[in-house]
Structure formats: structure tokens, C-alpha cells
């Protein structure tokens, strides 16, 4: 009740709290053992469990990618059959989209960081949060059952009537898996929206929200509004397979293009579910390592919301060749360009943030630079694909494959790597090896471009996607791409190596190794079970690097909820304006 009363007053008694550099009791030491982890409602542990699962699926789907690239070394059969190849690329796509990209930043890093950036003890519904994780696991189990039931080779888009004709057992299981998975995403979104609205610490107004929170907020809105449409679509597709209900099957009077509309109504916004949280990380990292306030706070914050909103109106640009109506095609193309503008604005704002900064090229910052380069290419090629006449030529070729890898991998995954390195000391309490980190980042950059740049060229030359065989003229491009994928694989193994090693032999991390002003850094590394040993009070903008650190280490002087024992660090009293 204390805060409810103090809110009415104009002043709040605050105190400085410096986080301890040698925490004895952290969330990692709090409850131990497998069972404690599996039943925990702590957002930090749930975040780590998501991170582990995402890493597992990323390794699996990445391994499949390397296998696919190896098969493409020669135009004809190399070592796997056509049907296996078709199943593998489907599995690679479905896993990367549904099991890696969608939960990667919001559910893994977001879960860990968001309540801390809000100064909250947990998300609004901790048990629901745990339930979301288990729903995700059940969805994954369904997908594995599907593999056992003959698998599925429909492409991750499950286009009808192919998906409702052939091989239905596998398709039924995987579509049910995706249906279940959707609920994990919906519940996470619901949880985040509520948390951001209701659980902000005193002083965190909407104008003082970290940009990461704005990005997660925009993401959550998309999750809640778009995912149910996927759920119903995929459920109808299951019914189509089980009962032949005929809604999407032309043989029974239905319409396959209707399926595409339904599917992309979700799956285009889903692209923003994947990339928008990455924008949040970039904003955090770039301001910390430039030691400078973010240029255009509101432009970046509101452009996330603008992208979320316009993102709902552009799904038809996946269907320019499908035979949808001419008016729809024109409108969708036009809106597609509009969604490009806020994205471009963000990039320029980040570049402007670097101007006259104090730039420290640590690994996370290196990833931000890589992001800016790769994501710009992804954006420009997106403009190319939004242009109607050019899209007719490029649709469903390797150009599209290269484009979405530049956006999803060059954007989302590079942002994830930036965030992972940035918050690694906070999450684990250990420092990773900076030299290896930089070497791996450079290798990721080289390997990535080597893999996907040739794909732009061969796509524009006419190489269609999802091809097991190809005509000889494309072989050089394919081989370059394959070598690039091996370099990428090595880079990821190096990252896996030094991150794992840091857990056991890593140098102990200070509470705030990057001297960030972010609220999440005003806790111990790793944090206490309750995140902070006091209720934080915020009086500054989150990126006010010109103000002294002391002004960012404030908490309510009279603590509640039995945390009085840590108060010996109090050193000064400040009044809130």
C-alpha cells in the first residue's frame, strides 16, 4: 500500500543503493536442482530455459542448413534423396521460424531483461509465464512426433492444396504443434503487455521507458493480434487434413488463395515479431557503447509502434504472383513502401547516435555494426521486392531467400548475439573472452556474406528456391554459398565454446561492466531472486549519459516486502522533483 499512498504525495523519500560487487545470494543460488528449475516461476530462470531451448533448436536447424548446403554442392544428387531434402528444408524453415526466431529475443532475453528494466520483481503472471514455456515444449514434442509419422515436406508455409493432399499424418501433427506453439506466443505477449502497463517502478513514465521495452511492447501487441489468426488458420488446415472440410481445397469448392491470405495475415506481422525486439537491443547496446543519449528517442519508440501497425496491412505482398485482385496488389505494394520508411528512420537514428559519441568497440558493439550493415542490405532488397514489376521476376527465387536471411539472420540473430554478449555478464555473472568474441563476430560477418550474397545474384538470374537439383550455370554460386555456410558454422562453434567456457572458468563479472545507465545494470551480477534489493526509483531518462551514475542508483528509502537487511549501502538522500 505504501506506493499507492506515496503516489499521491509530490515527494518520495529516496536513497542511493549501490549494487554489491560480491553478491552472496543470487537467483542462481536461490533454488537449486533440476526440479526447482523446472517448477520455477522466476522470469530469469524461465528466460534462461527459453534461451537453452532456442540454442538447441538453432543448433539443430543450423545443422540441417549445413546439410542442405552440402547437398547443393553439385547440381544433381549428392548424398540425400529429393524427398529427404524437401523434408529437411521444410524442417529448417519451420524450426528457425517457430522455435528459434519468434521466441528468441522476446521470450528468452526479453523474459530475463524486461522486468529488470521496469524495476519489477517479475512479470505480471509468473505462473502463466512458466506455462508458456511448457506449451512451447509441447508444441516442439508434436513436431518431433510428426517427424516420426512420416515427416512433412510442405515448406514452412504449408500451402494448400499440397499440404492437404499428400502425406497427411505428418502435416496434421506439425500443424497441431504450431497451433499449440501459437498459444505460447500469445500468452507471452499478454503477459508482457500487462507487465509493461502495470508493473513499472516509480518514476518510469512512458517517456522514460527504455527503447528495448518499447520494442517488446510493440512486439507483444503483434503477438496478441496476429497469432490467433494463425491459430485458427492452422486449425482449419488440420481439419482440412482430418475431415476434408473443403475450406481451402479447390477440389471441394474451397480456395487455396484464401489460405494464403490467412497465413500471411499472421506470418507477415510475425516477421516483425522476430525483428522488432532486435531493434530494442540495438538501441540499448549502441547507447551504452557510445556512452551517449540515443538520437531521436521518440522517433525510434514510435516507429516500432508504426511498424507494428502498418505491418498488419502488408501481408498481400507475399502474394503478388498468386492471382489476388489487382486493387489489393496495388494497395499492398504501396503500404509495403510505407512500412519501409520507419525502418529506415531507425537505422539513421542509430547512425546519428554514434556521432560525437565515445565509441568502445566491444563485441556487442561489433555486432551492432554488423547489424547496421546487414540489416540495411536486407531493407534495401526488401524495397526491391516490394516493387511490383520487379517482384514478379524475383518472387520465389533465391533472391527472396537471401533477402529474408539478411533480415532474419543479419537482423534478428545478429541483434540476438549483440544482446546475448551484452547481457551475458548480468545473466551469468561471468565475463566471456573478448578476443574470441571479436574473432567469432568477424567470422560470422564473413561467413554470412559469403553464404548469402551469391544467392542474390543467382536468384536474380532465375534460380528458384526449394530446388533439390539445379541447372549447371548456378554451380559456382552454390559452391561459394556452401563454403560460406561452413565458415558460419565454425563461427557459431567458437561462440558456443567460449560462452560455455566462461560459465566454468570465466572471469567474475562486475555489476555494471559496461558502465551502462540502464536500470537492469543497477543490480548485482547475477541478480538477486527479486532483481533488486529495494524498489528502484527513476528520475532520469534511461540514456542520460551526461548525468552522474549516482542519479541512476536510487530506490525508495523505506523498503517494503521485507528487504530491509540490505540497506547498509545507503549513502545519500535525494528528492524526487
Amino acid at each position, binding site marked *: *500500500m*505504501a*506506493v*499507492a499512498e506515496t503516489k499521491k504525495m509530490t515527494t518520495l523519500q529516496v536513497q542511493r543503493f549501490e549494487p554489491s560487487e560480491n553478491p552472496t545470494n543470487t537467483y542462481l543460488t536461490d533454488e537449486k536442482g533440476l526440479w526447482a528449475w523446472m517448477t520455477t516461476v522466476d522470469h530469469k530462470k524461465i528466460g534462461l530455459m527459453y534461451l537453452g531451448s532456442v540454442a538447441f533448436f538453432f543448433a539443430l536447424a543450423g545443422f540441417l542448413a549445413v546439410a542442405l548446403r552440402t547437398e547443393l554442392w553439385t547440381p544433381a544428387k549428392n548424398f540425400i534423396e529429393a524427398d529427404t531434402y524437401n523434408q529437411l528444408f521444410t524442417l529448417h524453415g519451420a524450426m528457425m521460424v517457430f522455435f528459434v526466431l519468434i521466441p528468441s529475443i522476446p521470450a528468452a532475453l526479453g523474459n530475463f531483461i524486461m522486468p529488470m528494466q521496469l524495476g*519489477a*520483481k*517479475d*512479470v*505480471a*503472471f*509468473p505462473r*502463466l509465464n512458466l506455462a508458456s514455456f511448457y506449451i512451447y515444449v509441447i508444441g516442439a514434442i508434436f513436431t518431433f512426433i510428426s517427424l516420426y509419422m512420416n515427416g512433412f515436406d510442405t515448406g514452412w508455409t504449408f500451402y494448400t492444396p499440397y499440404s492437404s493432399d499428400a502425406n497427411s499424418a505428418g502435416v496434421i501433427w506439425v500443424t497441431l504443434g504450431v497451433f499449440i506453439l501459437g498459444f505460447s506466443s*500469445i500468452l507471452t*505477449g*499478454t*503477459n508482457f*503487455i*500487462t*507487465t509493461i*502497463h*502495470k*508493473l513499472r517502478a516509480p518514476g518510469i513514465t512512458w517517456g522514460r521507458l527504455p527503447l528495448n521495452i518499447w520494442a517488446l511492447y510493440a512486439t507483444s501487441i503483434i503477438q*496478441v*493480434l*496476429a*497469432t*490467433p*489468426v494463425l*491459430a*485458427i*488458420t492452422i*486449425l*482449419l488446415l488440420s*481439419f*482440412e487434413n*482430418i*475431415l*476434408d*472440410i*473443403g*475450406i481451402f481445397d479447390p477440389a*471441394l*469448392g*474451397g*480456395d487455396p488463395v*484464401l489460405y494464403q491470405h*490467412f497465413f500471411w495475415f499472421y506470418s507477415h506481422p510475425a516477421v516483425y515479431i522476430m525483428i522488432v525486439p532486435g531493434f530494442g537491443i540495438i538501441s540499448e547496446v549502441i547507447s551504452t557503447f557510445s556512452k551517449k543519449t540515443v538520437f531521436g528517442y521518440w522517433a525510434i519508440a514510435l516507429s516500432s509502434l508504426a511498424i507494428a501497425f502498418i505491418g498488419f496491412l502488408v501481408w498481400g505482398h507475399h502474394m503478388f504472383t498468386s492471382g489476388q485482385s489487382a486493387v489489393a496488389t496495388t494497395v499492398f505494394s504501396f503500404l509495403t513502401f510505407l512500412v519501409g520508411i520507419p525502418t529506415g528512420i531507425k537505422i539513421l537514428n542509430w547512425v546519428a547516435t554514434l556521432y560525437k559519441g565515445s565509441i568502445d568497440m566491444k563485441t556487442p558493439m561489433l555486432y551492432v555494426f554488423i547489424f547496421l550493415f546487414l540489416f540495411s542490405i536486407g531493407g534495401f532488397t526488401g524495397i526491391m521486392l516490394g516493387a511490383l514489376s520487379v517482384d514478379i521476376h524475383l518472387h520465389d527465387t533465391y533472391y527472396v531467400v537471401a533477402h529474408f536471411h539478411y533480415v532474419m539472420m543479419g537482423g534478428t540473430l545478429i541483434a540476438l548475439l549483440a544482446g546475448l554478449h551484452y547481457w551475458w555478464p548480468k545473466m551469468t555473472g561471468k565475463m566471456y573472452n573478448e578476443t574470441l568474441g571479436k574473432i567469432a563476430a568477424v567470422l560470422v560477418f564473413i561467413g554470412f556474406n559469403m553464404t548469402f550474397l551469391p544467392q542474390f545474384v543467382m536468384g536474380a538470374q532465375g534460380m528458384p528456391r526449394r530446388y533439390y537439383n539445379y541447372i549447371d550455370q548456378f554451380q559456382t554460386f552454390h559452391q561459394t554459398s556452401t563454403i560460406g555456410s561452413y565458415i558460419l558454422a565454425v563461427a557459431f562453434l567458437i561462440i558456443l565454446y567460449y560462452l560455455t567456457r566462461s560459465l566454468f572458468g570465466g572471469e567474475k563479472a562486475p555489476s555494471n561492466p559496461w558502465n551502462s545507465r540502464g536500470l537492469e545494470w543497477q543490480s548485482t551480477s547475477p541478480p538477486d531472486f*527479486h532483481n533488486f534489493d529495494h*524498489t528502484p526509483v527513476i528520475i532520469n531518462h534511461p540514456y542520460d549519459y551526461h548525468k552522474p551514475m549516482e542519479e541512476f542508483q536510487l530506490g525508495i528509502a523505506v523498503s*517494503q*516486502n*521485507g*528487504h530491509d537487511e540490505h540497506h547498509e549501502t545507503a549513502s545519500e538522500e535525494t528528492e524526487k522533483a
Partner: protein
Amino acid sequence: MANHSASQPAHVQHHFVDSDQQFDSAKLGMWVFLVNEILFFGGLFCAYIVFRAWYPDLFTQAALQLDKVWGGVNTIVLIGSSLTVAMAIRSAQRNELKGLRINLMITIVLAFVFLVIKYFEYEHKLHLGIAPGSLWNPAPEVLAVLDHPKANIFFSIYYVMTGIHGLHVIVGIGLMIWLYIRAGKGHFNSEYYTPVEITGLYWHLVDLIWIFLFPLLYLIE
């Protein structure tokens, strides 16, 4: 969680500052979830609109196969249950635990009545061979009045929409029984009735969706 200070009532979870914050959060969370439910059904309504635009005569013909009277009765039953759920919340707010339990019980009974009527409607149609998808095998007397090559599509939509709605009713009954048991144990009072409130919100939505389904499926001319 052992971290409550003495001033906090037992129902406040550790990560909330006070009871109000917890109540507001639960309510907002439920509203967000309801928005998601609306979009979920929105997809189905979309499919309905598309197919009705394509096959307008089919929809008017096929709707004649549905029983307006029993559909109407079910509408009244659900509206009644919405009223009793609202009364249950009011009882909880006024600390009238007996009223809370009675109203919950009436709601549960009404929900069952709805399902029983729905069961007989389905039963009757399946008996006539009006079944979804590949099970479609209409009896001659149906074919006599419903001679349309795509008739199965209307009933596919009918079964999917009412079926998923029925599933929501079943989930609602489960929630209501859970509330009834907790009310019996004295978990709710005028200070804390959040689960009653948010279940009520959910139940109103289930009712609202039926109010759209009924005219769209049964009453089109």
C-alpha cells in the same frame, strides 16, 4: 513466497506492490486475452464472409436446415447465464458468499442446458447425414430441399464455428466449477474476487460470440 510484509493480505503475490495493482493487472491481462479470442473467431468470421459472398444462395438455403427455435432458446439461455455471472460478481463485491455460490451454480446449470440442446441439434443433423467434410452424406429428404454442390462447405463452417464455441462453453463450465469450489472454501470476499471477475469477463465474451453466431448461421433469409 515468504516475503510479504505484515501489511499485505495473503492473496497478494510477492511481485505485486499491493492488492489493487494485482487486480488491475489480472483484469488488463484478461482483456488482452479476450482481444486475442476475438481475433481467433475473427478468422472464422472472415472465412464465413468470403464463402457467403461466393455462394449466397447456398447460405440462405442451408440455413433452413438449422433449427431456429432451439437456436433461439439457446440464445436466451446464454444471455441468462451472462446475467447470473454478473450477479455472482456483484455478490462477491458485497461479500455475499451464499449469493455468489447460488449464482455460480445457476450459471453452470444454464451452460449445461446450452450444451445439451446443442448436442441434440448435432445429433439430429448427423442422423440426417449432415456431417462435416468427408463424412457428408445427406439423406434424400435433405437433398430434396438443399440441392447445392457446395452444401458441405456451409456445414463445415457451421460445425467448426459452433464446435469451437462449444469448446469455449466447456472450458467456461470448468472454470465456473473451480470458482464454485473455491467459493465454498471461502477464498473470495469483497477484497479479493479477481478470479470471479475475470472469469465473468470470459463468460460474457463466450455469450457475445454466440450472439453473433446465431443470426449469421440460423437467421439468414
